[in-house]
């Protein structure tokens, strides 16, 4: 048993969720036992990026034994409304997506027909037997084509292919920048990525005719939003749909969307009065699940002769693909890119123009870190270039600009307050623990040590975490509620259950939130069970994405648990004939401070509260021991970190090896360091992977050049080093509990740190890395280019 005499918050408690997962007893959507007579879906995917659907012949498929039905877009158009995430507002061109297109396809992998069959094997046979005639149309395969003057529009009813745009310039920007001693400028490209959760998407819709109710299991990060949106477009009663996100095998933002397959499965389950199941295969995941990135950043930074950052100009282009995803809409990546680009540095002047561009490619959206990793790839690369031009060390130019304690509270040029943080401390500590200065001293000008080119790189970053309702409204994201909630209930036996409106996909919420609740209630952690991901249990909320779980879920649990704690304390004070202010709850008891023998078991209080005890409740006290509370933080919580990567490049093969990786990180008050470190490790690995190898490519006809994990190159255990993590803890003064978010910071810091380390190792070749990934062939082209001179 864990004692609560020392705080549970901050302890590295191994996770409650582990034992069943380690025994193979997890229950992911595809593991749920299928109800009798479950029917399976198979989708017919478009092989063209832009084409008119001339005809669909399903007659051969329909004759196959075991095929129940085939539907096309025409069958759904009158029963399933389109998903339109954005509302009418300035800066937007509003575009919707049909569950299945009727007339034309807009990306390779968009589905044009669906087979319903008695099993998956037959469904796939039937998919192959459906003949679709297409008339190919001109393709807008990338942002350059989309922005060509006079380009055709991807969507009817729009004036151009920019679905969202925004711009701002601080007063005096032009004068200040023209007075700069140096300006550094370049264009940086981040390619599309697949989020690549190892569990593919999938859902199981189970309709109950007798209650006209649907239970909908789906691999999602946002069960409440899925419920509201399905009912909105199907015109159903929201109280008759229960959405359950069971064990979810990774999401990384990709599962923070509602997908057409989910709408179709839900619709067909009621339509056919049968359980309906669908599981994506890897090809469908790669082609049609919301991708990440696809950005171009044109950035100029101005500095004084002393290396002081004067200002930044950013021209930002986000290719969001064929449709803005639901619920985040067109603005999330492009708007966020501009707001998050000013990093951990004092910077007075800022000018940006940002836009979301539509093209004939798979939708792209809020993959881990969204635009921030790419933004810092640009700004931190330019920071190094400025240092080089000014004869400063990369560490020194950052030292001169990084925010120090005296700068706080600091208001960014886009009016986002930084009220706490350890910007300077993290930088200095990272330099110290890595032995940066000694490494630098020993590094020869040709960078060659033991036959390999060596380099070291720094990435200083901030992340805007834990955003609530007001932040989403300001950013024009209108389908994300923003708040979250928790319900805490103590049973008559004194054990607690806690329902949270979040939906964990591996972040360890069941343990983290149990730590918070147990701490507040004075219970042992083993006496607290956390339940998430079920709209049929617990109150409404938003979900788990954008590094918001600890802040929103943690805050809601804190508030609800405190309400219950207060009631326990009142009852205990009556029993002990003591003043409520003199009581503490700990180790399953309520004690009088300083008189530990004057105590009552919380279990007995619970029995009294449920009329199961000889003693009654105090006069005026109601039955039950539970509370529901909602939490919406007033501000974003700013997380900061410094990453340092050390690389070795084989000059013969061009292979980059990361020899050492250090993160000094501040995510506020740490709830469980084991879990926080795990979040950072995983995020750093995704960042490294996207620098070294990962990319999703289309050709100039919008044809996907990636169809399997043989072409999509993701890091393996051979590519990711051990990662050292050190914590600073500046508690947020703005959030309940002092928590800040941690999910994405690792990716954000990894891009600049690794890119700068590679650039440093290639310093003799004057390499400028402006495009990811940096595969061996890219390194070799840099090396041989120099040799050829």
């Amino acid at each position, binding site marked *: 048993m864990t004692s609560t005499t020392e705080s549970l918050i901050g302890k590295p408690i191994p996770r409650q969720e582990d034992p069943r997962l*380690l025994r193979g007893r997890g229950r992911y959507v595809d593991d749920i036992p299928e109800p009798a007579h479950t029917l399976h879906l198979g989708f017919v995917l478009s092989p063209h990026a832009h084409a008119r659907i001339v005809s669909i012949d399903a007659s051969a498929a329909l004759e196959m034994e075991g095929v129940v039905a085939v539907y096309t877009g025409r069958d759904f158009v009158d029963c399933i409304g389109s998903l339109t995430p954005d509302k009418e507002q300035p800066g937007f061109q509003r575009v919707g997506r049909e569950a299945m297109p009727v007339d034309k396809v807009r990306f390779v992998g968009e589905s044009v027909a669906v087979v319903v069959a008695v099993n998956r*094997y037959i469904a796939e046979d039937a998919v192959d037997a459906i003949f679709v005639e297409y008339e190919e149309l001109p393709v807008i395969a990338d942002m350059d084509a989309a922005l060509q003057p006079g380009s055709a529009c991807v969507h009817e009813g729009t004036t151009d292919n920019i679905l969202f745009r925004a711009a701002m310039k601080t007063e005096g920007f032009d004068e200040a920048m023209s007075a700069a001693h140096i300006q550094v400028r370049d264009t940086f490209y981040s390619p599309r990525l697949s989020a690549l959760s190892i569990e593919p998407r999938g859902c199981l819709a189970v309709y109950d005719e007798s209650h006209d109710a649907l239970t909908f299991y789906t691999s999602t990060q946002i069960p409440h939003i899925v419920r509201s949106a399905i009912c909105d477009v199907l015109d159903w009663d929201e109280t008759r749909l229960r959405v359950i996100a069971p*064990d979810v095998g990774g999401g990384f933002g990709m599962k923070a969307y509602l997908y057409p397959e989910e709408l179709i499965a839900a619709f067909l389950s009621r339509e056919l009065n049968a359980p309906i199941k669908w599981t994506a295969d890897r090809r469908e995941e790669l082609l049609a699940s919301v991708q990440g990135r696809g950005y171009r950043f044109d950035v100029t930074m101005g500095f004084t002769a002393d290396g002081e950052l004067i200002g930044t100009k950013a021209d930002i282009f986000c290719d969001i693909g064929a449709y803005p995803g639901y619920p985040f809409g067109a603005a999330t990546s492009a708007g966020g890119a501009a707001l998050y680009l000013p990093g951990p540095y004092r910077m007075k002047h800022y000018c940006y123009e940002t836009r979301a561009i539509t093209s004939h490619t798979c939708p792209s959206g809020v993959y881990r870190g969204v635009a921030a990793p790419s933004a810092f790839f640009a700004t931190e690369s330019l920071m190094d270039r400025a240092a080089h031009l000014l004869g400063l060390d990369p560490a020194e130019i950052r030292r001169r600009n990084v925010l120090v304690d005296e700068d706080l509270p600091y208001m960014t040029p886009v009016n986002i307050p930084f009220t706490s943080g350890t910007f300077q401390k993290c930088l200095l500590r990272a330099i110290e623990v890595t032995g940066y200065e000694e490494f630098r001293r020993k590094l020869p000008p040709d960078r060659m040590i033991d036959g390999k080119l060596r380099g070291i790189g720094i990435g200083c970053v901030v992340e805007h975490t834990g955003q609530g309702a007001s932040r989403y409204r300001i950013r024009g994201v209108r389908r994300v509620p923003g708040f979250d909630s928790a319900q805490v209930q103590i049973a008559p036996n004194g054990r607690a259950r806690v329902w949270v409106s979040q939906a964990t996909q591996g972040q360890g919420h069941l343990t983290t939130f149990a730590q918070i609740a147990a701490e507040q209630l004075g219970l042992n952690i083993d006496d607290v069970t956390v339940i998430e991901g079920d709209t049929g249990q617990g109150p409404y909320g938003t979900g788990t994405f954008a590094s918001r779980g600890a802040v929103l879920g943690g805050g809601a649990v804190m508030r609800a648990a405190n309400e219950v704690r207060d009631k326990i304390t009142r009852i205990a004070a009556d029993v002990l004939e003591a003043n409520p202010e003199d009581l503490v709850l700990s180790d399953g008891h309520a004690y009088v401070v300083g008189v530990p023998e004057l105590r009552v078991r919380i279990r007995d209080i619970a029995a009294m509260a449920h009329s199961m005890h000889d003693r009654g409740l105090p006069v005026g006290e109601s039955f039950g021991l539970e509370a529901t509370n909602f939490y919406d933080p007033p501000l974003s919580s700013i997380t900061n970190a410094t990453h340092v990567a050390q690389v070795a490049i084989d000059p013969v093969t061009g292979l980059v090896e990361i020899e050492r990786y250090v993160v000094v990180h501040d995510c506020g008050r740490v709830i469980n360091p*084991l879990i926080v470190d795990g979040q950072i490790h995983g995020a750093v690995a995704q960042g490294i992977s996207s620098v070294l190898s990962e990319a999703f490519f289309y050709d100039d006809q919008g044809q996907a050049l990636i169809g399997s994990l043989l072409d999509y190159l993701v890091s393996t255990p*051979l590519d990711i080093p051990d990662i050292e993590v050190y914590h600073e803890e500046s508690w947020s003064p703005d959030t309940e509990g002092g928590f800040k978010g941690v999910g994405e910071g690792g990716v954000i810091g990894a891009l600049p740190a690794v890119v700068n380390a590679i650039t440093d190792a290639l310093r003799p070749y004057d390499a400028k890395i402006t495009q990811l990934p940096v595969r061996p062939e890219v390194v070799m082209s840099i090396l041989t280019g120099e040799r050829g001179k």
Partner: protein
Amino acid sequence: MSEETHTISVQINGRKVKVTVEARMLLSDLLRGELGLTGTHVGCAHGVCGACTVMIDGQTARSCLTFAVQMDGATIETVETLGDNASLNVLQQAFHEKHALQCGFCTPGVLMSATQLLNRNPDPTETEIRRALSGNLCRCTGYVNIIRAVKLAAERMRGLAASSSAHASASRE
């Protein structure tokens, strides 16, 4: 279209099973669908991600690239054989203590690959661990704690480490 069927006898997790399968049924579907052993997961169905890794006659194999009909007479072990109802085995316990799993979806395959490694090499170097697990993709952990957990399990299996406290975490105050 009805497919040709075959009856096979296999030993799965110590239990003899006689089952009739279509010629094209994958071993992963036999395990998960017909036998309810859903601990074995399918992440790519083309032999790259390693989530579906099982042991066939003592050798790790991709159950998504194996037809069930090939298994006549074979002995198959899945993640469900590791540990018992009362306790986790040494490897599982090390994964728990080191936080070597997050979403848990890839974990069964990782455990099977690590089990084979430790069966064959009780004292693997870090490079040997990384090589042995290079066919298992994990998108959550960055592999960091998986490598640490396999090291810890190897130490414990060799009787060199009595408790996790002997093995300092790289996470510092």
